[in-house]
């Protein structure tokens, strides 16, 4: 099905492209939000990605690998967006207000989420991209490496470094705010 849509889009069939874009849009946008931690920048990046996807749809050599090609555009688009706008705006994340009374486990979950968010934000754009491709999109190593334009071995080492960096950031936070509550949160979320 997707293959047919790609082939049709390559002939200039915009309806086919709209179907492809519609199917991928939500996934792309959520990924961009995670990588960029900025809703406006994610809007820009995804808009750019889809414009480029339509403009260069004929560059897809293997229609069965359209998704991989799209992810590569996404990663490159995110890199450009991150470099274009060095100002880091606060991401609008919908969270439960912390001043409401809530069960202990929910409180612990929220605490850990905040910790994770803080640590994730400290990573570089490239490190976040590696983690999003692997942990959020669930791409096999080879596909993630292709999306990043790097060898598989390099991807694995980058993923390892990104995870290590995030763990180090979490531990630094834990040392800063005290160890007792994060420990409880870990028990809860894991």
């Amino acid at each position, binding site marked *: 099905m997707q293959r047919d849509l790609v*082939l049709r889009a*390559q002939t*200039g069939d*915009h309806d086919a*492209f*709209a179907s492809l*874009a*519609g199917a991928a*849009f*939500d996934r792309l*946008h*959520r990924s961009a*939000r*995670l990588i960029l931690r900025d809703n406006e920048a994610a*809007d*820009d990046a*995804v*808009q*750019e990605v*889809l*414009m480029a996807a*339509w*403009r*260069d*749809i*004929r*560059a*897809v*050599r293997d229609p069965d690998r359209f998704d991989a*090609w799209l992810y*590569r555009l996404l990663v*490159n688009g995110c*890199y*450009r967006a991150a*470099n*274009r706008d060095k100002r880091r705006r606060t991401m609008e*994340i*919908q969270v439960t207000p912390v001043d409401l009374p809530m069960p202990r486990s929910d409180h612990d979950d929220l605490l850990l*989420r905040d910790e*994770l*968010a803080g640590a994730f934000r400290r990573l570089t754009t490239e490190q976040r991209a590696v*983690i*999003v491709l692997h*942990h*959020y999109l*669930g791409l096999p190593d080879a596909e993630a490496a*292709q999306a990043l*334009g790097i060898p598989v071995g390099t991807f694995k080492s980058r993923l390892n470094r990104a*995870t290590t960096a*995030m763990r180090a950031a*979490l*531990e630094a936070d*834990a040392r800063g705010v005290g*160890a007792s509550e*994060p*420990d409880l949160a*870990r*028990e809860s*979320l*894991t």
Partner: protein
Amino acid sequence: MTAPLDLDRILGRWLEAEVETPAPSELLASVLTDTSSVRPRQAWLARLRWSGLSGGRSGSTRLSGSWAPARLTLVAVIALIIVAILAAALAVGSRRKLPAPFRLPAPFGPAANGLIAYAANGDIYLGDPVTGQVESVTAGPELDVEPVFSPDGTHFAFLRSSGGSSAEDIVVASKDGSDPIVVTPSPVTGLTWLDWTPDSRSVGFVSDATGRALQIVASDGKGVRTLVDDLAVDAPAFRPPDGATILFRGQSASGVGLYTMRTDGTGPRQALIPPRHSNNEDYDLREPRYSPDGSLIAYHEWSDELGEMRLYVMNADGTGARQLPQDRQVRFQGWPVWSPDGTRLAVQRMARGDSQSSIAVIAVDGLTPGLPVGPSMSGEGLHVEWSPDGTRLLAKSDVDGQILIDPGGDSWQKAAWTSTSFPTWQRLAP
């Protein structure tokens, strides 16, 4: 004691929770509205270098039963002529040899190496391949891409768009990025080719918006003229040393062919290779290139019979075509780029059953097989050009970064910078 956090277990769930809010549907609607008013770029600019050659595209086989015998007869006649010419040349020992290095009026022939211009992060940068130093020469919210240095090295042209628009202006700036001038009267959609005229005073371009008409605009922005509007033109080449003639692949209902015409618009258009159909029309005869002295043309031609792309050199008047050596396992050999001294061609290859392309350097005299150089390159397309002094090749695919390759061997190194578009090497004319 702090319990170790199993990030591998929880990251996926946490990431999903972080982006529970759906993507804004109005953004998708906006993008689709924007894209509906433009057409996809031709594969040339999208850097697609070859399609799935094994199966071919549906509907791309247009060789009719009644037309095939005529074509075979034509091929046989041409082959006989080629054999006769080669035999005569061998008999009298008059095989043409290029003096090396030959001297040509600037801006052709070997020259000193300047800086490398490339696009990254929406701006144009100049990189020094010797020191690795990089300098931004354009800035601002616009998206600046595809820089192309003028033959005299004093200016570069590039494409500029803004606000997410797919329409682009052609901008000409001095070599340091100063005095940028928008030379196109209005933004152009679907640009597929851009290059300078040999005198560095004008820029030629082709766009889908005009059905791939060939147009030339003065670098001061004063006037656009159309040279060809009845054929779909692809990646033309100006004939050195004076640029009075232009060579291009033209596509029509009759198929694809190679044509020449005078750039002042006078005189008839000549078909060096008459239009014909093949199973691989997307790439057949793409990007023919004049030798630096303008006496020869290198081009690739698709063979339906063998299912492979083959590399040829012929005289500038279309006579004397001869195939250059090609290993049996190579199914694609093409996209020739002349060395500045005109003695070698950098070509791209793909072996049967391989998905990666590689670069080889072939002597134009055809006496030795091509020399593989540099690493295999991944990605959908590959751009290769020579340093002005002929001592390096500059290569980039849409996946790999810029790579500097020794054309005489297999040593290569990555450039000190990364870019999002293909680079151009400044030529410091003698």
